[in-house]
């Protein structure tokens, strides 16, 4: 598609979504302009705030990369939340190990690796339920989300409770040396940024420039025909679910090792659901994903300013995100209808 057409689409989506939200705000007697300024100021106008944006951007982009795999394979991976949680549990498991004798850097790497494995296993489970058990992946993913949420609560209030008393604030903090290094004046671990950039580049490369990526695409577009090319669609789908789960798990690992330094009940922070919105708005394409993640992260981080400075409920940022995705779908639909010539 030509650049001009794409730009026009982006403009249409933005105008539609922001127009609708602005209208709502005006009806409520709130100035959309003030809101816009507040959100922008609150997200990118200071180094610290931009750091906060990045803190959200990293796990969100990891989850979105995972979803790119599963969407390519034609699967609805609704279980991302659960996969993030499992990754977090995996990382916590490693970081709680005593007397490993390993240097902190090695243990941290091992923890991240474990989070990838754990998330991958949870994703694979949903994949297995679908391919072997005949359980619809939407339902399986959802069910597994609830199960993972239950498990993490149980771990925090039970076996992994704080010394002294179980608390909603999560498990005990890991020893300081097991916190991912953050330079003074920063709020986000450079290692996590490097990790997510590498993951994103790898995702793009695997999906667009490898035989395996092509296989995923083929299995997603037409599983029946893919078999004629020697592709096993169920195996490919299962692998995609595992990778998707693994990347979501990695997001959980980052949450634990770089952000919270412990396991908390809502460790997944709804990134799983948010990432679904991101990838849908991106039209399931790779390139726009980091940009949309950044936009969503800015909205999430900037929305904190709404109650502070304007005494406005910050759910507004979620409204804007939802409106963007919905108008995206509307615009795609209208354009397709036009090109079909009705």
């Amino acid at each position: 598609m030509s650049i001009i057409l794409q730009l026009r689409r982006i403009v249409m989506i933005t105008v539609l979504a922001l127009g609708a939200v602005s209208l709502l705000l005006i009806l409520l007697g709130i100035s959309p302009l003030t809101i816009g300024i507040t959100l922008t100021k609150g997200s990118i106008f200071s180094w610290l705030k931009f750091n906060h944006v990045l803190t959200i951007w990293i796990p969100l982009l990891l989850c979105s990369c995972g979803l790119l795999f599963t969407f390519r394979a034609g699967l609805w991976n609704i279980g991302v939340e659960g996969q993030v949680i499992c990754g977090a549990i995996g990382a916590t498991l490693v970081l709680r190990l005593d007397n490993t004798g390993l240097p902190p850097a090695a243990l941290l790497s091992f923890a991240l690796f474990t989070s990838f494995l754990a998330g991958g296993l949870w994703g694979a489970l949903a994949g297995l339920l679908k391919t072997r058990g005949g359980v619809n992946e939407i339902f399986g993913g959802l069910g597994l989300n609830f199960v993972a949420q239950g498990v993490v609560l149980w771990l925090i209030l039970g076996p992994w409770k704080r010394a002294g008393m179980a608390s909603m604030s999560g498990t005990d903090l890991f020893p300081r040396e097991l916190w991912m290094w953050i330079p003074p004046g920063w709020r986000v671990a450079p290692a996590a940024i490097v990790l997510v950039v590498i993951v994103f580049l790898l995702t793009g490369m695997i999906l667009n420039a490898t035989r395996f990526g092509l296989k995923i695409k083929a299995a997603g577009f037409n599983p029946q025909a893919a078999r004629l090319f020697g592709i096993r669609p169920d195996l490919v789908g299962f692998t995609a679910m595992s990778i998707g789960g693994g990347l979501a798990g990695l997001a959980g690992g980052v949450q634990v090792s770089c952000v919270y330094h412990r396991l908390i009940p809502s460790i997944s922070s709804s990134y799983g659901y948010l990432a679904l919105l991101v990838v849908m708005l991106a039209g399931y394409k790779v390139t726009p994903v980091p940009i949309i993640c950044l936009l969503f992260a800015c909205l999430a981080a900037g929305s904190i300013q709404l109650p502070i400075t304007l005494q406005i409920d910050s759910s507004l940022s979620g409204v804007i995100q939802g409106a963007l995705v919905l108008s995206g779908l509307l615009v795609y639909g209208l354009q397709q209808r036009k090109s079909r010539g009705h």
Partner: protein
Amino acid sequence: MIELAEISKNFGRVQALHRVSLKVNPGSIHGIIGENGAGKSTLMKILTGFIRKSGGDFFFHSENIDLNSPKDAREIGIGMLYQEPLDFPQLSVLDNFMAGGTDFSPGNQRTILAKLCNNFSFNLNPENKVEELTIGERQQLELMRLIRDGAKILILDEPTSGISEKQQELLFNALRSLKDDGAAILLVSHKLEEIELLCDEVTVLRHGKIAGYQKCPFDREKMLHAMFDILPVSQPPAIKHIAGEPLLNFHKISSKTGRSGLNSVSTTIRSGEVVGLAGVDGSGQSVFLKSAFGLLQPDSGSISHLLEVKTRAFIPADRLAEGLIPGLTIREHHILSKESGPIITSKSGLAKTRDAIKTYSIKGTPETEIENLSGGNLQRLLLSLISADIQLILMENPTRGLDVQSAAWTWKHLHSRLGAEEAIIFASPDLEEIMEQSTRILVFYNGSITLDTQTKATDYQQLSRAVTGEDSQKQ
């Protein structure tokens, strides 16, 4: 009663119908014949309002009318039995019978259904799910539904493909009695025998235009001439090889897949053979091919291949839906079809793709997404994907949707690549194609092989009897 005047229809750039005019009279059966893709179904669907015409007029009792939806058509008593059954397989017979009707009273409708069944000597259980019925029974049900709805103009689109002899007889009797009651009937068919048996008049369509019209009694030669213009010159293939080593062995294979499944099928395919699978659609040919390729696992019996999977290729009937991957480009298909390294660069497969585009004269560039190719080009692409080391080519309807020239080209190509080590197995609904292209013929009837013969040793008459199940001598 109803008249079509200069009806045209185009699907995007495809002109399916061009100024077709037709008249249908009460108390008569009007046949429509023509080769595959002539536009018969399209014309009928326009007449029921299922799809919209691009130009032309309808006259009902000399009055110009609109037919914008099946609802409009039903109001003036037009009812159609579609080529692919448009019913609700998961619902019961009774629900299907009532669907779309105005009267919803199960008790009442059950009685009406029973009465109709009785009239036509059909036998249907109202509680059964429709998916459990045979194609013939599904047609019977639809027919009764149309009659219940008071259809006075009945359209039947190839009602006899895929049904048994007995069901066909029941159907024809029903049609005759409807005709006697004053209904106007349009019967679409490929089969000249049917037309001769039933129809009072016949219209021949070719390439979307009227190519001939006759009244009973019909002149068979003229009809064929109208259908095909130049009668297809049979080019007996230059058969170079005699049957050699066995490549594929079926031993008592049974399967429940498909309309009729497979019942204990045993046969051996040898190198150098071109085996044509004949039979009414859905008699097991397709299950046979898919099992041979390995797409389907049989429920019992054993298949032994003397070939690796990599040396088999399968070309399904529905190329776009089952054989190729819409969304991918020509080049991507070529990359997938050949073993290569894990990384794809901008050059991967490019040379090969260009080569294939040229050799197979595919209208497109390596980056063309394949859903933009025409049927003929899709077939060429599929053939180009078969690499040189393939030894067993399995095809469903290899020339479906191809014009005479493309079809001839395809066969020339296939025969030219057939060496002493290779074999081709193909299914086709067209007996002439089978007679012309194959060295050996297997006839399928109801999931069994009812005739297995060298082409030389048989003739058209024997084959057509075998296909309809009359001639069930096993060899």
